[in-house]
């Protein structure tokens, strides 16, 4: 059993099988990318892992724990964080406030102690702020600390989304199309950051991606999906030369 196992996951909406008996394993500290044409079921897979969807079949085991028993808000507590393809930032809050929400699971106070803002609450606020500043330094967001989200350019927003996921101090990071909409420079920076996340922060990364050159440069292993089924799993070179994969992407 590896660090993160997805076993025989099937998700059916009415008669349509979004995911059909999907299985794969991810080792600790690797960068694992899921590719596939649109509609292949990649986001559905993430939604199952984040417990937004309940699969009809199968199980998901993370670090020995069966996570399908958990509710959506308990996922971050066991160390899984995710970003969203369409960005789900808190538009009316500042970058700092968005990141501080990443520290929610480390909250030790209840609403009564919050209401009186007791000393331990203030101390905790300072600690969380310190932790969040580390992430801000890591992703170069100092300039935007106090800016509300709705005024920020797209590239910075994607960064904030990533930063917020990192604030939860996760062990497993799910990235949903992190490079979509980014310029060439931003994509190169992203590649460096993802490698740093693996090497410096020791976080396992599972990402959904479309940009094949980016995928080949950054990934350790790749999973190819099509029509909800696994086509192939393996090293970038193997996937690149796999005929099934080529057929799915280029057509006959």
């Amino acid at each position: 059993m590896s660090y993160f196992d997805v076993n025989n996951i099937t998700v059916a909406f009415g008669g349509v099988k979004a995911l059909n008996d999907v299985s794969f394993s991810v080792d600790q500290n690797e960068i694992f990318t899921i590719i596939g044409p649109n509609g292949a079921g990649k986001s559905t897979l993430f939604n199952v892992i984040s417990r937004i969807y309940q699969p009809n079949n199968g199980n998901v085991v993370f670090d020995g724990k069966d996570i399908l028993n958990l509710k959506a808000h308990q996922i971050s507590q066991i160390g899984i964080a995710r970003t969203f393809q369409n960005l789900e930032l808190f538009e009316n809050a500042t970058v700092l406030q968005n990141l501080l929400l990443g520290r929610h699971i480390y909250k030790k106070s209840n609403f009564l102690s919050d209401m009186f803002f007791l000393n331990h609450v203030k101390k905790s606020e300072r600690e969380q702020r310190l932790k969040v500043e580390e992430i801000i330094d890591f992703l170069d967001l100092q300039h935007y600390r106090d800016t509300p989200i709705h005024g920020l350019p797209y590239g910075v927003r994607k960064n904030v989304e990533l930063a917020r996921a990192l604030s939860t101090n996760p062990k497993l990071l799910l990235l949903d199309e992190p490079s979509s909409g980014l310029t060439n420079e931003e994509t190169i920076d992203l590649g460096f950051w993802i490698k740093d996340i693996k090497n410096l922060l020791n976080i396992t990364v599972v990402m959904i991606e479309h940009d094949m050159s980016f995928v080949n440069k950054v990934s350790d292993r790749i999973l190819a999906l099509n029509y909800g089924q696994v086509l192939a799993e393996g090293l970038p070179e193997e996937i690149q030369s796999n005929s099934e994969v080529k057929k799915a992407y280029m057509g006959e």
Partner: protein
Amino acid sequence: MRFIFKTNYDQDINIVRHNGDRISYGLLVAAMIIMPFFIDDFYLGELSYVFILAIAGIGLMILSGYTGLASLGHAAFLGVGAYTHAFLLTNGIPFYYSIIIAVAVSFFVGAAIGFPILRLTGMYLAIATLAFGFIAEHVFIRWEHFTGGNRGMVVPTPEFAGISFYDSATFYYVCLISLILSMFAAINILRSPTGRAFVAIRDSEIAAQSLGVNIGRYKALSFAISAGFTGLAGALLAHYIGYLAPDIFNIFLSLTLLLLIVVGGMGSLHGTIYGAIFVGSLPQMIAIGRDYLPSSIASQPGLEPLLFGLILVLFILYEPLGIYGRWLKIKLFFEMFPTYKKQTFKKQKTFTKSDRV
């Protein structure tokens, strides 16, 4: 334009950003404290009413402005607070305990209501709160043992520490202190992790969940806290009006509270104060305006709801950020003078997009 040079995190965590604000707010509070020496009883009463409205407004603002949950029946919590407090006083419970119990009861009623309906979104939630408001009003009218039913209920005037509530100044100070304490409590909640979770629920439930916020629990908590504040306002309101007629906690009162937060400015506690001042002085302004209107219109009982509705509509259309929003725009104008551009606040063209999956 003021630049704040920050040297430690506390400056962001603290309530007041810098000494200038500390002085202004301090002066304001001081002015309120010495008011009774300068104005007569009638205006003291009016000011007390504004304080009470502000406390109720804080409750609704936390729920709707900060957590994004509509509540169209909030007058129900005013009623819960008012009747509980009056009932306990009538049965001999001392003032201090009575008011605390009233707040607690209101809090738990809020939690009880919040729990079953917390899964509902947007429109459905609004309708559910509306239905709750009607049912509550009906219960108040019918539950004779607790509320006096159709006969209504007289609110006893308490005496404690030798000073009686008959004295307007005493009541004024009780309301002022209640407001200041409520403000502190609200500001603290909103700058703490609990408050951040509330705002997260408003802006993106799905992201909040992925960050570990238990949506159901926090929505119910927001309802409960909101009900607590509004219950406190209700208890004080009971003293202000002295006699609880059977049908005063109706949809018009709920609308008054909604008007308060919309006109004041949603999403800010400043807005609560502005809204309370506006709504509190509205009856006076209508009374004055009546003299200028032809008698056929002025004498109609429908005038007040008409004006309230009209003001609400006009603010939604032309000043959705409320009075506080207008104040911010004015401040920005002076800060950026002469480079201010009207386009800064120009509304983006918006389109409908279906919520259906």
